């Protein structure tokens, strides 16, 4: 099993205000002064309040089950559902990943909300979400580069809880992560703590491919972020 661990600085992520505003729904230049101002304050502070980590652990695929739409790694069978199975089925191995923005940004968000600054609290929350996604992008790029030498490619990232894959399957996923560098705790109800965390699979193989845009695969038709990049 190969694995890799990453620790990022906020500046590595190249996040900018426009990106974050567009995540909230705003088109370029449409946002409010107040929002833009608060965001720039939060971004300036982000380096200090984030502990951005990511890791992946590569497991060979032991078997696929076409009728069940499942695959097995080690002794664990993952029922990943039709949509994700279609993307994963040519993989020779799978990278299990975790990624987190750390605990503090979530605490900041809750603190502001509790103290009555709803807007600032919400903006911390949104920035936290963007950080974890951007960090997962970087981790994924590293993985892609590391397998490219062997003429292998990777799929997109897929997470339990998306596209018909039960969120509770994270329990199995966490069992295959021997040393949890990200320090994420999975609660019995399959919630990751810190909240600003993601988990999932990336398929690896000579015949797999990465799609440019995956919203169209998702079954959450009325998602408020659908027209965005998610």
């Amino acid at each position, binding site marked *: 099993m190969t694995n890799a661990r990453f620790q990022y600085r906020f500046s590595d992520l190249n996040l900018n205000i426009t990106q974050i505003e567009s995540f909230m729904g705003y088109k370029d230049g449409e946002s409010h002064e*107040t*929002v833009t101002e608060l965001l720039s304050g939060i971004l300036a502070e982000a380096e200090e309040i984030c502990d951005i980590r990511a890791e992946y652990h590569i497991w060979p695929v032991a078997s696929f089950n076409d009728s069940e739409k499942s695959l097995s790694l080690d002794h664990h069978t993952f029922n990943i559902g039709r949509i994700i199975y279609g993307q994963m089925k040519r993989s020779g191995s799978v990278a299990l990943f975790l990624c987190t923005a750390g605990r503090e940004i979530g605490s900041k968000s809750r603190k502001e*909300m509790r103290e009555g600054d709803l807007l600032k609290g919400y903006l911390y929350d949104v920035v936290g979400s963007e950080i974890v996604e951007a960090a997962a992008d970087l981790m994924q790029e590293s993985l892609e580069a590391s397998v490219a030498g062997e003429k292998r490619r990777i799929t997109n990232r897929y997470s339990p809880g998306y596209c018909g894959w039960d969120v509770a399957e994270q329990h199995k996923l966490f069992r295959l992560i021997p040393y949890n560098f990200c320090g994420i705790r999975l609660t019995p109800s399959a919630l990751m703590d810190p909240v600003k965390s993601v988990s999932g699979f990336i398929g690896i193989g000579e015949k797999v491919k990465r799609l440019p845009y995956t919203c169209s695969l998702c079954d959450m038709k009325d998602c408020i972020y659908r027209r965005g990049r998610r």
Partner: protein
Amino acid sequence: MNELLEKLSRCVELGKTDLLSPYPPDMKGQDGADELAKKALEEGIRPDEILEKSLIPAMEIVGDKFSRKQIYVPQMLMAAKAMNSAMKHLKPYFQSGEAKRKGKFIIGTVAGDLHDIGKNLVSMMIEGGGWEVIDLGVDVGSDKFLRTIEENPGAVVGLSALLTTTMENMRTTVTAIRERYPDAKVLVGGAPVTMEYCNKIGADFYSPDPQGAVNYLKQLAT
């Protein structure tokens, strides 16, 4: 309508909290919701009139615009902040019983779940709809909901969840409430929740956004 109330309404809608709020630019240096609410009371306008004719209608416009995706979460929050700054002047009258709100609304994120942004948005819009909101926070078990209903007879209950796993705890809570308080109205919401699921677990109402809940409560109150 009274000009002052109209102005107050506009301030809430646009998120002009007080004199110092820089936004919107063309209202810079003018009174905001805070000062105008105070003035309205000083002029002798009744607190419930301020709530009914000025604040609630403003928040209704905001909620509708959000449902139609004409504004996004930040503007809704700015409006709520302005609303709160006006409400601060009305609260003593509610406490003394001189003025009345529409009823009590108990809200919480169900057991096992720590998400609160969605719940906070709903709770603030319902407050803006003229209800007294009792926010129990996150990871709230059935017992705590039951106790709070006991202390606040007739209150409406709202449950929020963000994951399909924690959504199952909604069922547990709804069942517990039904057993003890068959007449209590229970609203459910959160990203994975659907109307179908709401019906399946025997809750009374589901809405994908806060305004749907506000409208439902409005019907209950009349």
